[in-house]
């Protein structure tokens, strides 16, 4: 049972990402969209527990519009269509907004 976490806010501005990280389960997926893309610049993403095998994704358009570089070793680039697929591939969705 996995959860898709859609993160829409910057951790520089809110605690949403920190709260999301408190409830992460094994093999969960995080999708950074809208201002959530700014989290790719935040140190918090380095403290996501590696042993939980969390997959990080970000909407490429949203990141590039904000001039945020996506390091593909850490985070995969996705499209809106991929995001829709992710909602089906995971058992539930939490939108952190």
């Amino acid at each position, binding site marked *: *049972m996995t*959860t898709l976490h859609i993160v829409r806010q910057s951790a520089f501005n809110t*605690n*949403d990402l920190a*709260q999301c990280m*408190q*409830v*992460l*389960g094994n093999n969960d997926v995080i999708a950074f969209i809208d201002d959530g893309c700014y989290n790719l610049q935040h140190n918090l993403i380095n403290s996501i527990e590696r042993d939980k095998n969390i997959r990080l994704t970000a909407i490429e358009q949203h990141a590039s519009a904000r001039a945020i570089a996506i390091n593909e070793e850490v985070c995969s680039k996705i499209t809106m269509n991929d995001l829709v697929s992710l909602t089906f591939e995971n058992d*539930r*969705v*939490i*939108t*952190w*907004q």
Partner: protein
Amino acid sequence: MNNTSKSLAIINAKAPYSSTAGKDALDIALIFGSFEQAVSLFFQGEGVWQLIKEQDGSIISAKDYLKTFAAFEFYDIEQVYVCQSSLKERNLPESFHIDNVNVLNQQDFAKKLTSHHSILRF
């Protein structure tokens, strides 16, 4: 809880009076309760302020929806969970203006939350 029916979790993550988020979450919880749907309430981060005793919204002309929390039992909303670390961060005691509130550590909070089919966050 009946395994064949779907369960809803509502996360409250905002303080009570600066936005309508808490009131919106309450409305949804009561609607689900009215239709005998399984609904659980979770309080995390700034949301824990909604449960603190001796609040009075009328002083700042805010509609005091928190008093309605006392009706949870009437609506069969019996599963209320609070994040212990959110309380600790704010130096808040584990005493609330409603009864039957479960304070959970981070691990149990996450486990309980993800045992639900659908999750809404306000």
